């Protein structure tokens, strides 16, 4: 059963929003995601293109400026809220995991 969209974030979604706390363009987003995830999470151009369109449509991010073929984005208040919720959820999962004393 597929997860309901944007109810919980996938890894690429989470990292893209995280990166967009600062204003970034598409190419920088890809690099930054790779950087902050220690090259663990990779976001392809197709995926990023789709997600940016989706996020913008949902009001999670805003485009701020354009220069040539590049476009810059930043997270909105709604986006921050979603990101925070996801962060809390992940923390809760980690806390819950502690009972296993791994």
């Amino acid at each position, binding site marked *: 059963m*597929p*997860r309901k*969209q944007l109810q919980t974030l*996938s890894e*690429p979604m989470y990292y893209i929003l995280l990166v967009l706390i600062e204003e970034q363009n*598409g*190419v920088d987003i*890809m690099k930054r995601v790779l950087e902050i995830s220690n090259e663990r999470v*990779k*976001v*392809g*151009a*197709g*995926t*990023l*293109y*789709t*997600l*940016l*369109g989706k996020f913008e449509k949902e009001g999670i991010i805003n485009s701020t400026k*354009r220069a*040539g*073929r*590049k*476009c810059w984005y930043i997270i909105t208040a709604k986006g921050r809220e979603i990101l925070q919720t996801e962060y809390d959820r992940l923390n809760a999962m980690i806390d819950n995991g502690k009972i296993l004393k791994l």
Partner: protein
Amino acid sequence: MKKYEINPYPRWRTYELEAYLMKKAAKGWKLTDIFGKILIFQKEEPSACEYAVRLFTPKSIRQIEEYQELCESSGWKPITWTDNLQILEKTDPSAIAIDTDEEILLIELKKIRFNSVWKGLLATFIACVFYMVLFLYAGGMLFYTLDLLMALMGIMYVASKIADIIQCFVLLNRVKKEMRIKSVNSNIKIVWNICYVWYRRIIITIGGLLFLSFFVDAVFMGIKGGLFYARNYIVIFIMWIVMLLIMIMIAINGKERVYHARKVKFPLWAYSIYQLVMCSMILFMPGVTENPVENLYTPNMWGYNSTTKDYDSATYESSLIGNMGEYMYVGYGLMDNDTILEQSTSDYKLQIYNTRINILLDRLKHNETKTCTFTYLYELRGVKIFQLDGYIKGYEKQEKGNGYGYDKYYYLEYKNGFCIFRFDKYAGDITDKQVIEGLVDKLEQNAN
């Protein structure tokens, strides 16, 4: 050296096409372009090229530009596109895949697929509802505006498609410029793309119009003769056979899911049900003239042609009795010397009526009297007048008029033969009796 091949895969099977292109490159044939379904390869040294085939659905020029930038920056060079299929080649060996999130990809593909299907389904549904409403409730002149409305719908449909194509033309031109794709011949490519889009649009439009025209006959209004009906029935029959063949092919090829793209599966059962529903809707949709299914299985639907007067062995030649005042009534019967008494009004309508009456006569001939009830009314100047009811299965007598439901059939028996006629009460205030009197006058004139 160049090589042209037909793309062996449907649009949705992008993985297979990717693999195929890579296999060709390994054999020394590198993809340089794609025109519609034609793949163009250039002979080069065998190499391990990596391709990505994506469904390309540009929404705005800004997104296209950005996407182009993203692809190039991440080591993927767009080689070519056609219609909505885009092919990219990996230029940086360390480049990450174009699509890294399968879930997102799946959602996008489903969305694209859904968008391509729902419009057709909605259009069919609206057409059916529209038809049903008019068929059941519209009476009188309103019913006769149906042809006009449906013709208008057809024109609007075509117009909308033309608008789509113009939009597509503009967009493709822009895409072409913005994406700076080097093709063999950019002008030819644009023209080809436009033609390809046109081709698809026209096929869809003509298909839709043919189906519509069969039921409404508006498009072919004024075209008379047997060929008129033959053509429609043949078209329907062929299309029906094609649909059946498709379903058989699907059934045979059961393991292969139809319409699958990557992980998007369209289960066989769902596809079969969809096809069945579509077939049923098309074939059983009530038509203005006849239910096509009934006509398909009704013998001698092509009409009669005979000079004999013998009822049992005869086939009959249709004849139009006349058009009296506001009433249009069309007769069918055996006249002296098989003469056509009068030919006026619309031959097109005559064809419609005669098809029905042929069915009725066929049943009479085979003594299927259960479907026909004769009610003796009165005698007028030696002519016995009966009313006919329950003449065609599925067309039960309706109190509420819809132009075809309210019609009455009269059977007139006179010394030289008989006559069946019907008329529609759609205008004027003349009574049935007056019409019958007029008809008897005509018969007497003819006898004299």
